């Protein structure tokens, strides 16, 4: 088992090196069309070329790229006019703000619905749940976000179509859990009111604007989780030990909790471990763009539009590495939690 885990870590390291190399090749060796097209930003081009040291030999550039990357020296973002590292640190909390609740909620709801639907297989509820899962997997969640914005923002007017990032900050512009502020606070530009209002991450106004992003990024997650849980639980619904327990007169609640969920929980738990790290996945990227949440995804998108090279590379590499690590964590957790698994065979 130790051997397997070591091997798995080694392969992840190889993969990480590979993706770094791919990133280096794509952005450095291939003639840079984007930079050439952006000739009017001549100063940027020169600075970029000088900093990247295009006169140095290829190997030196590659080595210094790797060294810089591992040292956290990720370059300069022209769009934000600060280092890439600072940009990442500033945007990350916004991604976590809706990402973390969405992952926790979707995992538990998904498992619950999946279990319920497995126990009541071929009933109407099961069909409804299965159909809903189909719906959740098929709907592009960024388009779903648009639909919800149209319904709740345009037609019902319950929420603002734009995202007010300042609502999570205190009067000094720092993120805070909960504080009160008067109408000089930047979140309330253009509004005048008497007294104090609450701001901060946990303030009602901020939570209200997070509801839709959380809900939308949950749809795909719940559906996937539900299908896993249902398939996993179905393996045990007709197992001998469940029949025995039923024959002995064990209450149905206890059967579900102790005889079906327990063995099914192992693979589900590993998925949970994997998903916790994979907060910033493809769907969330687009969700941030649609809602205008200033998280990692939106930063990356704007960097792509503005051709902010260093920021593009880092904002694309970070999620890649997170997925890499979460896959690793998932596999390792699986081996540790389930002694039955044979880890020699790849098939």
């Amino acid at each position, binding site marked *: 088992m130790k051997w397997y885990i070591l091997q798995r870590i080694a392969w992840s390291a190889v993969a990480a090196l590979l993706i770094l190399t791919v990133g280096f090749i794509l952005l450095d060796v291939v003639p840079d*069309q984007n930079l050439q097209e952006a000739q009017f930003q001549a100063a940027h081009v020169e600075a970029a070329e000088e900093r990247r040291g295009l006169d140095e030999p290829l190997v030196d550039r590659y080595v210094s790229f790797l060294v810089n990357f591992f040292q956290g020296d990720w370059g300069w973002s022209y769009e934000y006019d600060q280092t890439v590292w600072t940009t990442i640190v500033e945007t990350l909390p916004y991604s976590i703000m809706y990402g973390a609740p969405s992952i926790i909620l979707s995992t538990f709801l998904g498992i619950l619905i999946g279990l319920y639907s497995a126990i009541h297989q071929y009933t109407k509820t099961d069909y409804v749940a299965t159909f809903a899962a189909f719906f959740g997997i*098929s709907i592009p969640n960024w388009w779903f976000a648009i639909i919800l914005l149209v319904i709740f923002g*345009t037609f019902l007017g319950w929420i603002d179509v734009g995202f007010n990032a300042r609502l999570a900050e205190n009067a000094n512009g720092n993120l805070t859990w909960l504080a009160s502020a008067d109408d000089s606070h930047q979140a309330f530009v253009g509004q005048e009111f008497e007294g104090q209002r609450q701001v901060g991450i946990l303030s009602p106004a901020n939570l209200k604007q997070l509801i839709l992003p959380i809900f939308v990024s949950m749809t795909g997650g719940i559906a996937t989780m539900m299908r896993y849980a249902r398939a996993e639980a179905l393996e045990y619904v007709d197992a001998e030990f469940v029949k025995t327990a039923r024959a002995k007169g064990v209450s149905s609640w206890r059967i579900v909790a102790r005889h079906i969920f327990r063995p099914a929980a192992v693979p589900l738990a590993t998925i949970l471990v994997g998903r916790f790290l994979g907060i910033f996945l493809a769907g969330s990227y*687009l969700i941030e763009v649609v809602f205008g949440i200033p998280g990692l995804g939106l930063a990356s998108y704007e960097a792509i539009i503005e051709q902010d090279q260093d920021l593009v590379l880092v904002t694309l590499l970070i*999620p*890649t590495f997170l*997925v890499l690590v979460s896959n690793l964590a998932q596999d390792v957790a699986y081996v540790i939690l389930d002694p039955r698994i044979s880890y020699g065979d790849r*098939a």
Partner: protein
Amino acid sequence: MTDRSDPETATDGGLADGKFEEINWQDVDSAEYTRSLKSKLWAAVLGIWALGLGANLFVRYVMADDLFHEIAGVSIPGVAALDPTWIDTIPGLAVADGWIQFPVLGVVALHDWLWSITLAGIAYYAVVPLYEKPRMRRYYWRQFRKNKAAVISGIFLLVIFLVGVVGSRVTDQPTEQAGLDSIPPVGISIDSFVVGPSGQEVADCSGGTCTGTWEHPLGTTTSGEDILISVIHGMEISMMVGLTATALSTVIAATLALLAVYHGGWVDEIIFRWVDIQLTFPAFFLYLLIVYSIGGSLFILIMIFGFIEWGGGARLMRSEALQRREEPYVTASKAAGASPLWTMRRHLLPNISNTIITYVSLSIPSIILAEAALAFLGLGDATVTSWGQTISDGRAELSRAWWISTIPGIFLFLTVLAFNFVGDALRDAIDPRHAGAE
């Protein structure tokens, strides 16, 4: 010398006096095995296609515009002497912007080359066999028919496909028309200040509100493009990208999986170590990175999807083929001296077709979604009108012209949903082991 041959079975050919191992069976095979007209035709189509695409690429990227020189900085000796204008001297052909202009077809875009061979391949490997074997056709239809949702989905997809392919040929690409912007769909009223000035003349405007007109049944975008036409053009793009990239990745996956399974050992090790590494990457970010750095023409998009997407499929096919490899018929075929290619094509490939179809049905919708997402981010091909692009067009105007983003999305959603339903039903119909409502 005794006559070893059996007079009962001996023919008057040359075979009668040989031992089994003395006969050159390859000669016998090649003498008796003639290709059918159908497969000759298919080979001819493939040949013409490869010749056309090859010539097109050569003229464009070697003769007109030395791509190799651009990337590597070194010229291949002699290339500079080549001049694309000699194509003009061939009757019927001409050069336009470095691309060959064919008679009747005109310039064939690179993605259209891929699209055409994919359609031909689907016809040859799926439609023709079903047409020729009515019993098989009836059996599959009976199985498939059990699932009502899948039948409806199948019809829907067929309609999308036909309307998209035919509609994109008979209508021009939607163009920006200043002033005609933001006309609502038929039956929808909107404040008249939203609609552009010449749009107000076209649409039914009175008393401060404008109602949609049948001239633009689904309304127009913020730049005055007709949404119905955009949607029709988007149908072909989605189908093209989904089917073509899936075809490419399926060919790669099946070839590598079969090679790995047949040869085993280090071939297997190398191929599937690579798959292990490739599968740890989140594909979407790789797409973003590549499209950002080398550009996202439709051809490049299809290539990227095709070359990145195949890992999961290869893994599925490998585990299926591993079981098939142990079957007696594979051993028998090897014992009879069949070549590796023959064993793989005639014995392994047909028997893993269940897995292949499962993979195809999962892959098409995911690629369609990926293309739409990239187009929505503005990283797709700007020269074609796709659903994702139209959706992003209306994103800034959600509170005023909400229909621009929602209408193309409905088609995208329904198409993906339909592919998922059909895929589910196909899996049930073809593979009797998975009966039930999973």
